[in-house]
């Protein structure tokens, strides 16, 4: 049987008293795009660093095509870090050549918009183009797996769609992709999701599986300001959405009671929570004792 492209099995990593990764297990198979979600500090970066061989696990293991992470096995992997990892004082062409030499492959041909800026310094380019350069650098050695850390942060919807065209084309050709994101539109581009909290994987599947039975409450009233203030004073997680007030992790009945007590009449409806709201509920739970 073929080994999975990427596999982590019972990964544990402790930093002092903190367990940054706690029995993390998942695989990424050829052709699938897996989204790794979680608040800052949930353990996403720790897991990726162990997968890249930059950090040694305290228990469990990480495998690339069945091998431990090493310079050799890393060749099967393309990586785009959040800060892109480009040399801003080199031109686009120089960045591409340099990375190609490091991997011992032919430098990718630069076409279209990237061809036009081949001789420009990377640091002088708009962020959207810089991201495309980083993708070229990560893909030119034809990796079997891709690891992308917040791949489209800071770009507009069309530029984001174009970058995802590239990611999905790679998946179509059999590349397995692991992507971290804080961004719901990106999560929806994935075939399946993993949600991490407090070092552990606490949710797996599609968006609805991740949200589970967590609900939010929408409060619709002509005076959103008074409803907002009344709920804010009760120290429940409350935000706005247009001219509605949105409350997380509290039942509609409880919200209605709080509003009644403040003398406010409103339409109060339970709706499915967003992934971000699910994370907020998780973050408000007391840290588990170890």
């Amino acid at each position, binding site marked *: 049987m073929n080994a999975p492209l990427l596999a982590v099995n019972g990964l544990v990593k402790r930093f002092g008293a903190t367990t940054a990764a706690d029995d993390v297990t998942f695989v990424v198979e050829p052709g699938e795009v897996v989204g790794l979600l979680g608040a800052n500090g949930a353990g996403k970066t720790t897991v990726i660093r162990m997968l890249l061989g930059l950090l040694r696990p305290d228990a469990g293991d990480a495998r690339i095509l069945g091998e431990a992470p090493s310079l050799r096995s890393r060749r099967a992997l393309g990586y785009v870090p959040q800060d892109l990892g480009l040399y801003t004082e080199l031109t686009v062409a120089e960045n591409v050549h340099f990375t190609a030499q490091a991997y011992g492959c032919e430098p990718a041909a630069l076409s279209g918009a990237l061809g036009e800026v081949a001789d420009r310094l990377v640091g002088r380019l708009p962020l959207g183009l810089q991201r495309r350069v980083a993708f070229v650098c990560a893909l030119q050695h034809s990796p079997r797996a891709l690891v992308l850390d917040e791949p489209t942060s*800071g770009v507009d919807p069309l530029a984001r769609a174009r970058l995802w065209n590239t990611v*999905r084309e790679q998946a179509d050709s059999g590349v397995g992709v692991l992507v971290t994101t804080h961004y719901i539109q990106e999560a929806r581009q994935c075939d399946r999701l993993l949600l991490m909290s407090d070092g552990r994987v606490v949710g797996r599947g599609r968006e609805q599986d991740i949200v589970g039975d967590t609900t939010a409450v929408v409060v619709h009233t002509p005076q959103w300001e008074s409803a907002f203030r009344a709920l804010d004073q009760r120290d429940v997680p409350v935000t706005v959405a247009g001219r509605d007030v949105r409350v997380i992790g509290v039942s509609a009945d409880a919200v209605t009671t709080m509003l009644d007590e403040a003398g406010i009449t409103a339409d109060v409806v339970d709706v499915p929570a967003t992934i971000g709201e699910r994370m*907020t509920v998780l973050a408000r739970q007391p840290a588990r004792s170890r």
Partner: protein
Amino acid sequence: MSVGVTNLSVRLGSVLAVDDVTLATPPGQVTAVVGGDGAGKTTLLRAMVGRVAPSAGTIDVPEPRAIGYQPSSSGTWPDLTVDENLDFVGRMYGLSERRLRTRRDTLVERAGLVDARDRLASRLSGGMRTKLGFCMAMVHDPELLVLDEPSTGVDPVSRVELWRLLAESAADGTAVVLATTYMDEAERASFVMVLERGRSLLAGAPDDVVAASPGVVVATGHPQRPAFSWRHADAFREWWPLASPNGDAPVAVDLEDVAIVAALRAQNGVES
């Protein structure tokens, strides 16, 4: 008074960074300006707070002392503590020591920074630093609050907390304007303007902008018009001006889809 900009253009060197933009930012409302890198968001915001001069048009904003501004760099001083950052800004605005203490305590409490008051800004997490930047922009209780990408790189949990702070300010009657690259965040605003190359591509209440988007978007495995299709998970989305000739059923679109359609139409110079 009405707050906002009318037919505003700002030229930076040879670039028309803001091109004939009209945007009302009324008190008690959160207005979102959306766009990618280079769309003109920062220049529009800087013009509103008087940091860059307009080349045409009018800007209606309160006097400088009644404006709060958080630059995209968060505006915090890394070598000062949370309290020191707030004190410094407060004194710059000439707040009395008593007023400053009250404001500082209220804001630190609201932002959940009480336990970090004595921590250097450089030692704060990204989310906490953003919240400190927000408090600094709010310390003098401004009538207009202008925030440049307060949530870029901030995790979803901190974003929910940030929106609670924004909403508190709006509920108190402040005009809040923020730039963002997150469409799900823009959907929370009362009014959204999508900028591209300095021009307004879409503007309105989020629901209205989505409802007014022309044509239909369908999900399909085999798009016929590459210029008007994009990947969405394991299928494609494709825009048609009237209906899909293949009878594909339209999908429900969100602000992200609508912005993609508007950008594709603008780029292809189309009504087709």
